[in-house]
């Protein structure tokens, strides 16, 4: 494989993984802290993309970047206070069922309000167009499309390649979000409590630290990440009611492959899945089963996922 093709496929794998990572991070955060399996996480993403496209179309995109995650945070908090908390004492199966039911309701509600067809999500001016990766600028043709595009020097490739700028933005946003989340958990008292809760919720309760108060914020945080995913991923995954369910199953597998409740595991699994999809694109037979194949193999070889803790959720 020539270096340019390889570079493009790596980029594609990263970008495919980025969207799974954003959704899986929220899932695994909520699961790890609350032990709550949220099958409605895809529905949160659906709400986010419709909110984003509505805000962006009526005002401007920058406003959507601020408003939508904030809105999703609020929805997440309300979701926790209004519903989830009544399910902590109920079995995990009930949690799966209620959120699964909610996902159906949200999808159908969005279809009712916005229709089943795609709503075009126009990219903002600054985010549209191509990005040029070059090793030798002289190889880039002297046309405005390339000359005025954002560019980055990359070693090893021959001449230059282009990629959709927005997808590079998505990768960057994912990285920033992940870094932000890790920093939040690493350097704040809130993060300390949450991390302790993820390690040993029983012990925290035992120590009398009221993690319940933090739960709403954790769900809000997970939802806000879905909000970020919606704003930046919406133009790529398209704005349809069915996209939530389509993304949920692979994202859930990402969480399981990475290990339930493991943030870094989710990140690595997401990239793994992204790369697998990218590199199997031309092998139609493998392409459609590759995600499940990886999940099955990982779970059989490493039953608790790549970074799973012993005994979580068994």
């Amino acid at each position, binding site marked *: 494989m020539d270096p340019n093709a390889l570079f493009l496929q790596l980029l*594609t794998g990263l970008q*495919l993984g980025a*969207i799974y990572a954003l959704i899986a991070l929220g899932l695994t955060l909520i699961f790890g802290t609350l032990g709550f399996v949220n099958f409605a996480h895809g529905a949160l993403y659906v709400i986010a993309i419709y909110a984003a496209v509505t805000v962006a179309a009526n005002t401007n995109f920058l406003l959507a970047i601020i408003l939508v995650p904030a809105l999703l945070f609020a929805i997440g908090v309300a979701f926790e206070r209004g519903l989830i908390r009544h399910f902590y004492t109920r079995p995990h199966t009930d949690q799966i069922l209620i959120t699964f039911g909610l996902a159906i309701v949200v999808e159908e509600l969005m*279809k009712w309000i916005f229709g089943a067809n795609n709503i075009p999500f126009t990219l903002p001016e600054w985010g549209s167009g191509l990005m040029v990766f070059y090793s030798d600028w002289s190889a880039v043709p002297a046309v405005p499309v390339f000359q005025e595009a954002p560019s980055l020097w990359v070693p090893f490739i021959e001449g230059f390649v282009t990629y959709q700028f927005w997808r590079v933005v998505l990768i960057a946003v994912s990285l920033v979000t992940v870094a932000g989340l890790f920093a939040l958990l690493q350097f704040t008292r809130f993060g300390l409590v949450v991390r302790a809760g993820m390690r040993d919720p029983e012990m925290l309760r035992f120590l009398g630290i009221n993690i319940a108060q933090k739960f709403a914020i954790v769900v809000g945080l997970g939802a806000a990440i879905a909000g970020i995913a919606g704003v930046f991923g919406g133009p790529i995954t398209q704005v349809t009611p069915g996209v939530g369910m389509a993304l949920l199953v692979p994202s859930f597998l990402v969480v399981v492959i990475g290990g339930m409740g493991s943030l870094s595991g989710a990140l690595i699994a997401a990239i793994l899945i992204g790369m697998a999809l990218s590199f199997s694109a031309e092998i139609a037979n493998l392409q459609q089963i590759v995600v499940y194949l990886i999940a099955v193999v990982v779970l059989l070889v490493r039953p608790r996922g790549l970074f799973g803790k012993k005994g979580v959720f068994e």
Partner: protein
Amino acid sequence: MKFTKRNASRRQVLKGGAAVAGALATPHFFVKNAWAQGECATLGNFPVEGPEVVFGFSVPKTGAYADEGADELRAQELAVEHINNGGGILNTLQPLSLTGQGVLGKKVTYVSGDDQTNPDATRQVARRMIERDGVIMFNGGSSSATAVAAQSLAQELGVVFMNGLTHANETTGKDRRRYGFRQFFNTHMTGLALGPVLAENYGTDRAAFHLTADYNWGHSMSGSIKDATEGEGWSTINRVSTPLGATDYSQFLTAFLNSDADVLVLNHYGNDMVNSVTQAVQFGVRDMQKNGRQVELVVPLYSRLMAQGAGDNIEGVFGTTNWNWSLDNPGAKAFVDSFTDKYGFPPSQAAHTCYVQVILYADACERAGTFYAPEVIRALEGHEYEGDGYNSASLYRAEDHQSFHDVFLVRGKSASERASEFDLLQIVSEVPRSTVEYPVDTFEGELGDYCPTA
């Protein structure tokens, strides 16, 4: 023992104590008509008793094609209205036996159901309409997979199915059925129409790369385009299958970018098409040069509803369509005007197909003088007619139940060219029926018996 419930509505049955008592006496609900007249021992819901005849409309109400299904249902309701009260293409269709007072003296009513664009659900909903609601025919659908499933059920149960939107060759090819008719064109005809235009505009030595929705229509479409373009001297670099309902095509587009191909053919429909074409444009495919030529996009099958979703991304992209509301002929005008009057916006091509199909069926009953399916089928076979929305005459070929009529080569309009939000496709050329008519032995297939063969 006659099937008394067939002509009574469910509500009447529930209300009527006598009917309740009758139903309790024997499970005659489950007993098939044992003495239908004529050549067939048992036959669907024939004969029709009472003052009304029921049509069944099975359309996608949920799922990715829900909007298209809603448009189909609007058109079907309009068709029933016109059959019962006159209007629409009843004023333009020639020859015509319908009088605008129902069919064979009976008022047409209808029931509808959600096929979910899913072959299993299609059969479920069709069974309900046939067994419970006693429909004499059914119509609708927005996918070739559901069309094939519905046709074979139609053949089993002896109820005529007038296909809605289905574009795969199989529907009137290897999966053709005596009880199924298709007004919509097919991928082979698209290929015949599109091939020469592509060669003329893009040259005869292009290298094509196909992305194909992984089901019968996608493969049919891809095959037809491959045959047509290779006939013009093109080569086909690769044909990659994409999962039905995929949301992100970047890995497939990357494969295209990494290939030597300079034309990207997107054999997608509905949301798949909107996604893939939008993402292809975002990837800069249309700004790209390969092998020293401008890279081109082709979307073989267009629909207005999809064009709405794809927005500006389809500007200048070639494709074909079965019909478009902007056509200027009496039939099209009659239909578009009455549709727009009733609903406030123009109909889609899927709506047109369903509308025409319902009226053609009703007309065939009137011409045959009976609802007896074999006679109705014979009345449709080889029937030539005009005034159904095309500029020239159309024909239902007897041997495969494919309708032949003009098809249209279109390209997406730019934002500035649009007169309204529905004015998205510009008709580049009208491809005459003779160009797209192909020999019946192009595809193998058996229609089957005039009597139901379950």
